[in-house]
């Protein structure tokens, strides 16, 4: 397959070797599981169980709360201790409603829906609803409900299902291990998704720095039709879906459009595995593979963790902290977000837990911009970070928006490369959030204005009706008087 070049990007040290050679180990059940109602993008799930209830493994705990939402299931059997607010695994540290489950240790399965024996003969809608019921979301970290993405085929003509095995973030090796150890499941899941989407072809894209995964997946794919495995250059952020699509097709996804508009839908490799289990065996998403790494972790490894396990329990399982970390990051070191504490649960989108030492975090005070232009050269989205950040610093968000700050994918390449250590991507995250907040406020103001206008019209009508009634009464009186 011919590959196309992608502009910009950076080449951070991989630092994957600490975990890439250790096989996935399953973590034993912790004492308590904390399952947030919102582990995905969209509306929070709505609980269908109450405190004190006994539940079995795989049982539905909270159903999807809207069209874009995902249900939550019990990762093991046990008792619901309570449904309470708990710190979210989110940099804000805000509380969010969480189902607290105490495992009983029996790990007893609930009755699952029967698997589809031959998914390739089933109705695509049946596959989509199976994926929706299993609570599967994008497991690369974006956590967008996968079933909603599988609906794209009904609206658009799709050519390719692109399976994203780039894993361009340093440290992370969970996708690498999934590809090496579960290639058959993954390819089966991918083919099921392609069938549901109506896409005739599956392409698996893997960065060239994972030769073993490439070999294993190529081997597994050799007997399957319409399936291609490609090695893409190791270049951060190759795993961004827009950039991966550009590398495969040479086409750039237009701003505010989807890759599906180019006929391509991108899914993560771990998502494909989850789809395989959901469709073939009716199993909901109950666990995920997490890379636990960083210089402060005693025993870095890839762990299959039941959802809802506390990060502190997970770190303990990995031998605890060898040295106090400077920073604990949820996700990769480039795009991951700092965790407010270790007392937060692992959720569907947790791809990595990195405890970084001061050396690794490499935090340095920022200095004035020397206008070297490196950020402009490496921006994979073709933006001008130096100009945008200057505008945002002066709170001129409109000017930054005109330069395209909303098209920034927050890959962090600019912050990484900046010789003056200016937190460029932090400015853009702030600006994007603030612009969205302003949009929401403007929508609310419009909504209120409509209500007020309606209110005024109603008052006028009432006044007019009153006046008419009074006039009619006066007329009747006058006529009465005339008769008398």
């Amino acid at each position, binding site marked *: 397959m011919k590959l196309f070049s992608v502009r910009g990007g950076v080449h951070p040290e991989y630092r994957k070797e600490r975990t890439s050679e250790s096989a996935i180990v399953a973590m034993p059940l912790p004492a308590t599981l904390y399952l947030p109602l*919102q582990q995905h*993008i969209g509306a929070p799930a709505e609980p269908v169980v109450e405190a004190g209830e006994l539940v079995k493994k795989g049982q539905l705990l909270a159903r999807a709360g809207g069209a874009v939402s995902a249900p939550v299931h019990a990762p093991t059997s046990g008792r619901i201790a309570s449904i309470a607010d708990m710190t*979210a695994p*989110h*940099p*804000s540290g*805000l509380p*969010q409603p969480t189902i607290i489950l105490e495992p009983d240790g029996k790990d007893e399965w609930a009755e699952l829906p029967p698997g589809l024996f031959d998914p390739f003969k089933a109705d695509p809608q049946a596959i989509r609803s199976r994926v929706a019921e299993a609570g599967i979301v994008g497991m690369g970290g974006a956590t967008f409900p996968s079933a909603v993405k599988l609906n794209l085929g009904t609206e658009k003509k799709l050519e390719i299902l692109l399976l994203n095995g780039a894993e361009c973030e340093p440290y992370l090796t969970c996708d690498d291990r999934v590809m090496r150890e579960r290639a058959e499941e993954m390819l089966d899941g991918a083919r099921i998704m392609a069938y549901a989407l109506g896409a005739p072809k599956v392409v698996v894209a893997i960065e060239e720095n994972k030769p073993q995964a490439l070999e294993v997946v190529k081997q597994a794919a050799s007997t399957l039709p319409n399936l291609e495995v490609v090695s893409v250059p190791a270049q951060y952020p190759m795993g961004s879906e827009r950039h991966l699509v550009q590398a495969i097709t040479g086409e750039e996804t237009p701003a505010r459009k989807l890759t599906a508009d180019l006929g391509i839908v991108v899914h993560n490799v771990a998502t494909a595995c989850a789809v395989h289990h959901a469709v073939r065996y009716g199993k909901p998403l109950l666990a995920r593979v997490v890379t636990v790494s960083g210089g402060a972790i005693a025993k870095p490894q890839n762990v299959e963790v039941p959802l809802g396990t506390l990060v502190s329990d997970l770190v303990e399982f990995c031998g605890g902290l060898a040295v106090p970390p400077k920073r604990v990051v949820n996700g990769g070191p480039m795009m991951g977000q700092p965790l407010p504490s270790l007392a937060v649960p692992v959720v569907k989108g947790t791809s990595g837990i990195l405890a970084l030492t001061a050396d690794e975090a490499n935090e340095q*005070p*920022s*200095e*004035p*911009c020397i206008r070297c232009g490196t950020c402009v050269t490496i921006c994979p989205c073709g933006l001008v970070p130096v100009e945008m950040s200057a505008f*945002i*610093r002066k709170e001129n968000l409109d000017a930054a928006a005109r330069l395209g700050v909303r098209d920034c994918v927050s890959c962090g390449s600019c912050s990484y490369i900046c010789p*003056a250590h*200016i*937190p460029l991507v*932090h*400015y853009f*995250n*702030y600006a*994007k*959030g*603030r612009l*969205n*907040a*302003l949009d*929401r*406020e*403007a929508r*609310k*103001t419009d*909504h*209120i*204005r409509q*209500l*007020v*206008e*309606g*209110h*005024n019209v*109603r008052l006028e009508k009432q006044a007019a009706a009153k006046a008419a009634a009074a006039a009619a009464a006066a007329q009747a009186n006058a006529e009465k008087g005339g008769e008398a």
Partner: protein
Amino acid sequence: MLIAVGSLAVMGATLGTLLGVASRYLHVEDDPLELELLGLLPGANCAQCGFVGCGQAAAALAKGEAGVTLCPPGGKAVAEKLAKKLGVKADLDDQEDVGPQYAVVEEDLCIGCTRCIRECTADAIFGAPKQMHTILKDNCHGCAKCFKVCPTEAIKMCKVPVTLSEWHWAKPEDVADVHAH
């Protein structure tokens, strides 16, 4: 030819004079700036700015008699927009931004007097005489007019909580300031 030129010239002169006279005597005082400013205000006529309604507030803004930070429900967002339109620098630092609020009826205390319903310009309050009232959160913009008229203090103003999906990073510390130290 001469007749054509002559008649057109006469017509032009007459119509021009007519238009000139009309524009002088039938002139309507309408400040376009005022209308634009009115468009930026929430339009709920809550009177928290001290004017009767948003129209009067817009007039005062256009004349420069009121500051851009006059609208409490509009908050920082409206103040910024007004400042931009008027070409002035909004001094937002000393403005205490309480953030968006909404009103809630405490059910035990409500006596069903309907006073708040009559105050609400956005029709956000539902209820009937001697029946408990309730406020639709999505339609409330926190103008607090109902809060002020409630005889039993059954209405309280609550801060709209920040949700996970609405939270965003704060602005990083100013690089130039860091350098100045």
